[in-house]
C-alpha cells in the first residue's frame, strides 16, 4: 500500500454509489445497484477481487491475513484543514484476523507452485444446491461466470478418526452400514414426517407448539437415538452450538428452523443431476463468487478500479452530510451513497465527535452484537482423508472430540479437481465458533490431531508445536484411549500435513458505524445469512428499487468483452 503506482484520474467524478471493497456483499450490492440503473464506482485497495471472501495463492494468503491483523499505520497526511468546503475524516482499517500461525512442512514443493493454489480466506464454505445463493446466481445469470462441482458426501467424525457417512436420503439410509434396523426405521419415518409436513399433507402436520419448541426437544419426542439426533442437528441442520446444553448454546434451534434446514438439505439432494451430494463448490474457489458478481455489475455499467485505497471520507462542513471519498491518488470522487467493506473505519479528528446530523443520518445499519470469533484453519495434504472420495464435508458435533468442545467443528476437503491446489493434493478447510483465540486454536488442533500426522521436524514456528502439546492434554486423553480399541487407528496411515494456516477471525463490530458497512464472513457453511443481510442493505439504500428484477434474465449480454476492468 505504501507503493502506489500512478493512477489515471477517474472520470466521471460523480456517481450514485461508491462501493469500497469487493467482498461478496459489496459485489452483490454493486451488481444490484448497476442493474437498477445506478451509476456505481467499485473500488478495492487490493489487486484482486473478493476482499475477505477471496481465494488467494498460497504465498499471498499469509500476507493478506497479516495486513488485516495489525492496527493500520497512522494516516499519511493528516490534513484536517482542507481548503475545500469539506471536512476530511480519515479512513483506517480494523484488524480482522488474529493469532495467525503459518506452518510449512514442505517448503520447496509449495513455494514453487504458490500460484497453483486458490485458498479461500473465509472457508469452509459451500453452496447448498437449493439455497438462496444458487437461486440468486440463476436469477441474475451470474452462474454463467462460474462452474461448480459436487461435494459428494457429508460425514460425521469422532475422536477415533472414524468418518461416518451421514444418512441424508432414503438411498443413503438404506445403504448405511453403521445404523441399526430400528435406527433406520426411525430416521426414515422422521424424514417422511418432515416431508409430509412441508408438503402440507393433512394428517401429518407438526403442531404449532412443537414448531416453537427447541428442535432438540422435538427430536427427543420423536424418540430418535442420540446418534441420529446428532446427525440431524449438526450435520444436516448445521447447528453451531451444543443444543443440549442451554448454558453454552447461543443458537438454540427451534423446530421450525430445524425443519426449514432439513427442507433445504432435502431439496438440495438430487436437485442437479450430476451433483450426488447436497453441496456445490465452485471451480477455482469461493473467490469466484464475488468476482462473478463484479462481472455482472461491470456488464451493467459499474466502473471498477482495483489497487485503489481510499484515504478519507468527505463530509460537508456545514451539514455534516456525506459527500464523497478521497482516493489514495488524491482525487476526490463524489456520490450520494457509500458502501464500505466492514474492515474500514473512520477516525474522527481527536477530541471531536461526529457532526450531529451525520450521526443521525447514517447509522442505519449495524451488525449483530457480540458473536465471538471464528477459528479457521487451512491444511494441505497429499492424501485424502478418506480413500475413493475427494470432495466432502466432515462435521464434528459438539463434544465429539473433547468434553469442553461446545461448538461444531466443520471440515471441508477439496481436491485438485476443483483447481484449488496442485494435482494430487487436497485442501482442508476447518472452522469453529469460539470465544477467544486460545479456544479456537484448541478446536482446530483437535481436528488436526485426530485426522492428520503433523511432522515434528518442522522448520516453521514452534508456536504450533507447543500449542499442540499444550492443548493436547485434553485431546490426547481421548486418542490414547481410542488407540487401544479403535479399528481405524491401527490400519491406515493418517495423511501427513504439508502446510497449514491457522487464524481467528472477528465476527463482531466493535462500534456501531455511522457509515453503511457490509457484513464480514460469518460462521455459517453457506451464504444464506450474508445474502439476507446484503438484501436488507440494498433495501435501505434504495428502498424503491427491486433487488435484481426478474427481467434482468431476459436480455443476457452475450459478448465476452464484458469483463471487469482492472
Amino acid at each position, binding site marked *: 500500500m505504501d507503493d502506489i503506482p500512478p493512477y489515471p484520474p477517474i472520470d466521471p467524478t460523480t456517481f450514485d454509489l461508491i462501493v469500497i471493497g469487493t467482498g461478496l456483499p459489496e459485489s452483490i450490492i454493486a451488481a444490484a445497484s448497476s442493474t437498477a440503473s445506478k451509476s456505481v464506482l467499485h473500488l478495492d485497495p487490493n489487486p484482486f477481487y473478493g476482499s475477505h471472501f477471496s481465494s488467494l495463492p498460497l504465498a499471498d494468503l499469509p500476507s493478506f491475513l497479516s495486513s488485516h491483523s495489525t492496527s493500520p499505520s497512522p494516516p499519511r497526511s493528516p490534513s484536517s484543514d482542507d481548503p475545500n468546503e469539506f471536512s476530511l475524516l480519515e479512513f483506517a482499517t480494523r484488524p480482522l484476523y488474529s493469532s495467525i500461525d503459518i506452518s510449512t512442512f514442505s517448503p520447496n514443493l509449495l513455494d514453487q507452485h504458490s500460484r497453483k493454489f486458490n485458498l479461500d480466506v473465509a472457508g469452509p464454505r459451500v453452496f447448498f444446491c437449493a439455497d438462496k445463493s444458487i437461486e440468486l446466481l440463476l436469477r441474475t445469470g451470474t452462474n454463467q461466470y462460474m462452474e461448480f462441482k459436487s461435494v459428494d458426501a457429508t460425514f460425521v467424525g469422532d475422536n477415533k478418526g472414524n468418518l461416518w457417512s451421514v444418512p441424508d436420503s*432414503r438411498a443413503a439410509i438404506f445403504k448405511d452400514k453403521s445404523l441399526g434396523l430400528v435406527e433406520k*426405521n426411525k430416521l426414515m*419415518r422422521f424424514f417422511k414426517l418432515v416431508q409430509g409436513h412441508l408438503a402440507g399433507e393433512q394428517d401429518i402436520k407438526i403442531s404449532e407448539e412443537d414448531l416453537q419448541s427447541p428442535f432438540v426437544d422435538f427430536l427427543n419426542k420423536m424418540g430418535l437415538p442420540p446418534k441420529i439426533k446428532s446427525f440431524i442437528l449438526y450435520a444436516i441442520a448445521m447447528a453451531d452450538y451444543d443444543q443440549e446444553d442451554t448454558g453454552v448454546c447461543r443458537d438454540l434451534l427451534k423446530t421450525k428452523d430445524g425443519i426449514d434446514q432439513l427442507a433445504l438439505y432435502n431439496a438440495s439432494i438430487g436437485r442437479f443431476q450430476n451433483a450426488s451430494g447436497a453441496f456445490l463448490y465452485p471451480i477455482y474457489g469461493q473467490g469466484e463468487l464475488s468476482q462473478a458478481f463484479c462481472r455482472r455489475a461491470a456488464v451493467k455499467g459499474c466502473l471498477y478500479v482495483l489497487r485503489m485505497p481510499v484515504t478519507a471520507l468527505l463530509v460537508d462542513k456545514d451539514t455534516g452530510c456525506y459527500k464523497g471519498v478521497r482516493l489514495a491518488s488524491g482525487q476526490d470522487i463524489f456520490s450520494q451513497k457509500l458502501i464500505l467493506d466492514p474492515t474500514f473505519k473512520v477516525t474522527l479528528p481527536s477530541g471531536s465527535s461526529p457532526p450531529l446530523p451525520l450521526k443521525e443520518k447514517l447509522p442505519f445499519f449495524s451488525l449483530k452484537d457480540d458473536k465471538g470469533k471464528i477459528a479457521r484453519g487451512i491444511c494441505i495434504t497429499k492424501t485424502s482423508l478418506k480413500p475413493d472420495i475427494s470432495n466432502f464435508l466432515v462435521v464434528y458435533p459438539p463434544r465429539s472430540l473433547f468434553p469442553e468442545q461446545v461448538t461444531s467443528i466443520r471440515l471441508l476437503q477439496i481436491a485438485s479437481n476443483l483447481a484449488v491446489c496442485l494435482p494430487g493434493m487436497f485442501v482442508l478447510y476447518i472452522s469453529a465458533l469460539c470465544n477467544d483465540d486460545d479456544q479456537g486454536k484448541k478446536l482446530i488442533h483437535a481436528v488436526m490431531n485426530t485426522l492428520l500426522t503433523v511432522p515434528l521436524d518442522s522448520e516453521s514456528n514452534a508456536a504450533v508445536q507447543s500449542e499442540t502439546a499444550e492443548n493436547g492434554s485434553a485431546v490426547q486423553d481421548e486418542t490414547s484411549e481410542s488407540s487401544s480399541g479403535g479399528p481405524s487407528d491401527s490400519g491406515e496411515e493418517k495423511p501427513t500435513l504439508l502446510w497449514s494456516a491457522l487464524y481467528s477471525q472477528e465476527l463482531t463490530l466493535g462500534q456501531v458505524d455511522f457509515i453503511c458497512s457490509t457484513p464480514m464472513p460469518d460462521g455459517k457453511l453457506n451464504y444464506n445469512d450474508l445474502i439476507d443481510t446484503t438484501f436488507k442493505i440494498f433495501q435501505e439504500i434504495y428502498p424503491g428499487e427491486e433487488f435484481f428484477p426478474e427481467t434482468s434474465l431476459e436480455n443476457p449480454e452475450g459478448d465476452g468483452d464484458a469483463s471487469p476492468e482492472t
Partner: protein
Amino acid sequence: MHGRPRKAPKPEDEAASSAKAQKLRALQTQFFTFHHNKIYTKEAVELSAKLLEINPESYTAWNYRKLAVEHYLNLPDCNPDSIKSVLDDELRVVENALRQNFKSYGAWHHRKWVLSKGHSSIDNELRLLDKFQKADSRNFHAWNYRRYVAESMKRSEQDELKYAEDMIYTNFSNYSAWHNRSVLLSALFEKKAGGFLLKEKVLPEEYEFIHQAIFTDPDDQSGWFYHLWLLDQTVTTDSPLLASSWPGHGSDVLLVGDRCYNGSAFSPFSALHSDSGSFPIVLYFNQPVGGVNSSTVTVECGFNKNEDLFWKPLSASNSQTARVWVAHLKVPSSDLHSTVEVSVGHSKGIISTRGFVYSHPSMFSFKVHVQPMERDSSQVSVAENISLREENFKVYGTQSEESIIDSFDQLIIKNGHETTASNWRFEALAKEIECFRELLSLVDCKIGKLTLARLLKAYDAMSYPFANKLVHSEEVLELYSDLMKLDPTHYQFYKDEHSIVLLQKVTSSKESLLQHCFQYKDSASSAICDPICLRLNNLSLSRMGAFEKLLWVQMLDLSHNELQSIEGLEAMQLLSCLSLRNNKLRSLTALEPLRKLKSLRILDISYNQIGDQSIDTTSSIGSRNSKMNQKLL
C-alpha cells in the same frame, strides 16, 4: 418414467398431436401399399423406418421389416458384409424407435430377433442398456432384454448380481432389480456354483439385505415382494414328501358290509363301511406331484396284485399332477385278516411340478379286517335316515380314548430325515420372526403383520411333526383378525387364511380334535355302532384346509360357516355324509370337488346362496344332486 403427475394436454400439444396423426396416416397408407405388394425396395424399407420412428407401436411395420430382412438375406448376391449392413440398419431403426418410446414391446422384440440372427455384435447391447436403464431404472423391458443379453454373452450371474445390487443401492424401490436378483440367485442355486452352493449360506445374507430396505421404508412394496420370495425359498423343501396317508401306518382297518361291527376292539376312526368290495388308499403329498403309478408306489398284500392298482390324481383341474392320489384296493368278500404294505418312491418317477424328484422313499403298513356282508333289510336304509340334528350327537366318549390316541398319531407321517437338514430353516425363520416383531413394535404396518403371520405359520408348520403343537396359532389367528379389520379390501383373503390356520389348530392335537368329534346316535335308529362325526360347524370358516389330518373322516358337519368354496375336499375319500348347510356357496360349480367323492351318500346343501338366493333346498336335494352327480345318492 415413474412418479410424474399426468398433465392435461395444452392446446399446442393437441395441435401437435393432430399434426402427427395426419403425417402418420399418410405414411401408413403408403406403407400398407408396399407391405401388401411385398415391395422391399430401399425406398419402401426406409418409409417403414420413418413410420416406426414416429410410432414404435406399429407391429405390422416391425413384421414388414422382418420380412424385408429375410428378403435381403435370401438374395443370391448376399455376402457377410451386406448381411451385416442390413442387420446394423435394423438395430439403428430399433434404437431410434426406443428413443421415441423405450417401453415399446415391438421394438425390443425386434431387436431380440435381429440379434438372434447371430450376425451382430452383442457387446454394444450392454452399453445401450446402461443408457436406457439409467434413464429409467425400473423399465422392465430393459431388464428383460438385459437377461437375454447377459445370457447370450454368457455374462456371469455374479456380474449381473453386482449390477442389480448397484441399481438397488441407487434406489431400492425397484421391482425389476429385486426380481432380477431373485432370478439370478435361483439360477445360481440350481447351478450350485462356488459360493452359492448352499441356500443356507445365501438366504440369511439376503434376509439381512432386504431388512435394510424394509426397515428403511416399510411402505415400499418392492422389498416385501423380495422378502416373500426369500420366505418361499426358505420354506419350500425342494423334493416332495409324503405328508400323510389313509390308512395310517400301523392302523387297523375294519371293513364291514352295510353296518358297523358291534363291540369291535377297533377304533371307530378306522372302521369303514364298504359295500363296493374295495377301499381307497390315499396318499397326501406336501406339494403337487406327478408320476404316481404302480411302479413308483407298490402295494403288497395277499389278496390283490400291485399291478392292478390304478392311481388317480385328485385335483380340481384334470391335470396329471396333484397333492392327493388315490387307488382302490379290492378285497375278497370273505373273512380276511391281512397286512398291507405300501412303499412310496422306492423306484424313481415321482416328481414335483417344480421338477424335483421324490427322493425320500417311505413305507407304511396297516392291517385289513374284513367282515362278511350281512344283508339285513331293516338296516339297509340307515343312510337315508341320517339326520344331522343337534340332539343326535353326543360328545365322543372317553372310553375309547386309547384307540384314538393311536389313530391320531397314525395320521401323520414323520419324515425324520428332515430334522437335521432343516436346522438353518428354523434358525432363519426364528430370526425373521424376531425381526418383524421388532418392526411391528415400531410401526403399525399391514404387510408387516401379514408377513409375521406367514412366518409364524411357516415356523409352526415346519416344527409341527416334532413339536406336536402349533405354538403360534393363537397369535396368527389374532394377526389375521386384526388384518380383517385394518384392511377391509382384502377381507376375504385374510378370512381364508384365518380359516385354514384355525383348522390346523383344531387338528393339531388329539385334545382339540376330540372336542369336535361326536358320536352320531339317532334315537330312531337301531344301529349298534355309532359312527363318529367330525363337527366343524359354527367356526365361521370361509375355506377348508388341514385335509392331511382329515383323511379318515366319514361324517363331516361343516354347517353354519361362511364357506364359499370347498376346494380340496376331494382329498377326503372316505366321506359318506356331509353337511354344508348354512354356508355361502354360490354356485353348483363350487360343489365340483364332490364329484370325486365316490363314497358320499348324504349331502345337505340347504341354506346356501346357489342361484343367488338363500332358499331351503332340502326338499329338492335329491333332484339337485342327481343332476349334479348321479352317483351321489
